[in-house]
């Protein structure tokens, strides 16, 4: 009897530890600009002028709220070191993942920065009356350059992790650009108009994340909750605990953010 009890206790203990190994946490961050936001440059609209000119298109690299300094389209993604274990996938992500939709609308790509988990399909729509052709120069995945007639769409399956976002362009309309990050895990997010992002259901443990923005590539210098920080190649180490984990407010100087666009 005693032995049986002890045995049951042991099993209960084992179950408890394995449950603990499957804790999941969320990562939150908020990105704010330090300095004056750059004025977006006007796009050089030289094709399909009667359709596209009226949309007053601009270069979309910097979408920054002039008042609060909130930086939209900052990308944070989990990036395990080469040769180390890949993260577990939370069961929620395995249930019939939704498609990632990228639209050609009003002579621009929308959204401008997208992330894709390889279990998802990429659907590229063309809601414009004119033809667009979308070109993706992947490094690991199979690149493509497909003609999409007005009202049409194409569907792509991508299978491999890309180490950085891949540029998307349109051969007919040179000003059009977007970026897509393809990862074999769902742990990536893009900041919204408030400069905030959340990556959900990351397995608990120590992980390395990458901070990236189109204007500078890897975000290497900034302030985290008032303290000056340096992140080599945009890499930041975070210990994910159960529940919410907050990186806090990350301030990026305007000189750093606009580095590659100067």
């Amino acid at each position, binding site marked *: 009897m005693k032995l049986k009890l002890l045995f049951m206790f042991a099993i209960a203990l084992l179950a408890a530890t394995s449950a603990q190994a499957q804790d999941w946490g969320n990562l939150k961050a908020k990105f704010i600009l330090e300095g004056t936001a750059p004025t977006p440059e006007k796009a050089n609209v030289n094709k399909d002028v009667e359709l596209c000119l009226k949309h007053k298109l601009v270069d979309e690299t910097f979408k920054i709220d002039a008042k609060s300094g909130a930086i939209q389209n900052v990308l944070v993604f989990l990036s395990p070191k080469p040769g180390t274990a890949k993260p577990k996938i939370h069961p929620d992500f395995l249930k019939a993942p939704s498609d990632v939709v990228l639209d050609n609308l009003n002579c621009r790509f929308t959204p401008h920065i997208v992330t894709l988990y390889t279990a998802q399909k990429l659907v590229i729509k063309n809601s414009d009356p004119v033809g667009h052709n979308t070109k993706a120069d992947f490094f690991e995945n199979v690149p493509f350059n497909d003609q999409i007639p007005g009202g049409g769409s194409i569907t792509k399956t991508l299978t491999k992790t890309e180490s950085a976002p891949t540029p998307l*362009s349109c051969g007919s309309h040179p000003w059009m650009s977007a970026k897509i990050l393809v990862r074999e895990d769902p742990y990536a997010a893009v900041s919204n108009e408030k400069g905030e992002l959340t990556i959900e259901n990351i397995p608990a443990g120590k992980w390395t994340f990458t901070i990236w923005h189109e204007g500078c590539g890897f975000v290497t210098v900034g302030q985290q909750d008032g303290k000056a920080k340096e992140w080599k190649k945009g890499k930041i180490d975070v210990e994910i605990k159960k529940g919410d984990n907050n990186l806090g407010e990350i301030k990026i100087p305007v000189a750093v953010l606009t580095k590659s666009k100067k």
Partner: protein
Amino acid sequence: MSVCRNWRHCLAALLAAAFAGLAGCGSPDAKFVEYRTYARLSEKAAGYENGFTHLQRQDVNNVLAALYGTPDAPSLPALANVDVTKLLDISKLKLAAGSVGSDGKGRPRGLYREHCAHCHGITGDGNGPTASFLNPYPRDYRAGLFKFKSTPIGYRPLHEDLKKIVIDGIPGTAMPSFRLLPDQEIEALVEYVKYLAIRGETERQFYNGLKDDISESDFLSHADPAVAAKELADGNDGKAPAQKAIDEKVAETDKQRLEAIKGYTETVFQKWLEAAEFMTQDTVKVTNRNDAMRVLREELVAAGSNEKKLTDEMVLAESQQRGRKLFYGPIGNCFTCHGPTALGDGQLGDYDGWTVELIGKTPKKEDIKDYIKHGMPEPRNIRPRNLRHGVYRGGMRPLDLYWRVRNGIEGTPMPGNDKLKPQEIWHLVNYVQSLPYEQISNPYEAVPENRRERN
């Protein structure tokens, strides 16, 4: 002394000796050139203010030499998960490599340097001595991208595709036909081009890895003990780590790096092996043009045409008309770039993929200057083909045109189109082939009234 019977013999012997000496120490061994433009792109993306160090680049070169040998003595890497001999034949490579000459039995050596290197360069970087005089520039193989092939964009070419280019040349460019070489020598050259492409792609993988994956210490093949020590100290509140801990960390990192190098190299070979697999699985097979014309004829008869009076010329004319509609229609959308009169003037400001990769679609002066310094040729705008000439770079067989429309052209703005049915692609091919003979416009007749008005 017997050689020196008189002063003339003496002089000749001396000169001969001098030239023999010159040949021995005057020409250094051929070396592969570093992929500086791509390294530059990677170091900029990684945020290195001063670029990769000399030691980091030397490290990459050493690993490449260990995997692929030298221009005089090529070798192939041994990989656990990929059979490299399925793709490359070392005996053929040896025929193409080395300096120009022949062995004791009269078999040639150094075929690549004899026929290709003066334009494409020893490294296959498209930067041989004649390169800057040519328009278009010779192909840089190192991205693994080739324009004229049977596979779609994103897939490597097949062996036969490259062989066709070597045999036929590329009309409208400086690439000549090597049809007169024996098959064995053409085979050797094609193998060597693949070898140079694969070597270059591996170099790209390495620099790309250095750019973002590899972060503990920034060497491709090994860890830096000083960096390891600093990282251990950072993780332990600044306390200096024991030598043993450093050694362990270095050994662990070295092991990871070796795995990474193998992984990068395997990825490159897999891409080439996948291409053949894709072609056997491709669901949109090429149909025959004759079949397409037969189907169209049946369609026309069913719609009421007199079967006996319907000549082949009439069927072709109908096909060309349909092709014309597709050319200017939303699904074909060809006129957007090839222009309203197909003179190739619809899109003039774009660059090819090899250039856009480095400087983008709307390049800045500083970037152009920077990459030219690192070996990029002066950028030129890419022109959509003028379809009124009847000169087709990828070959003039109808099948070649079919592939261009269906698959697009790698490294250029020309997209593939899988919305067109095979039948419709043949209509487009028929129309494109008729373009050199189609009137661009109907010229106005001289109007006699004009003269009267002037008087």
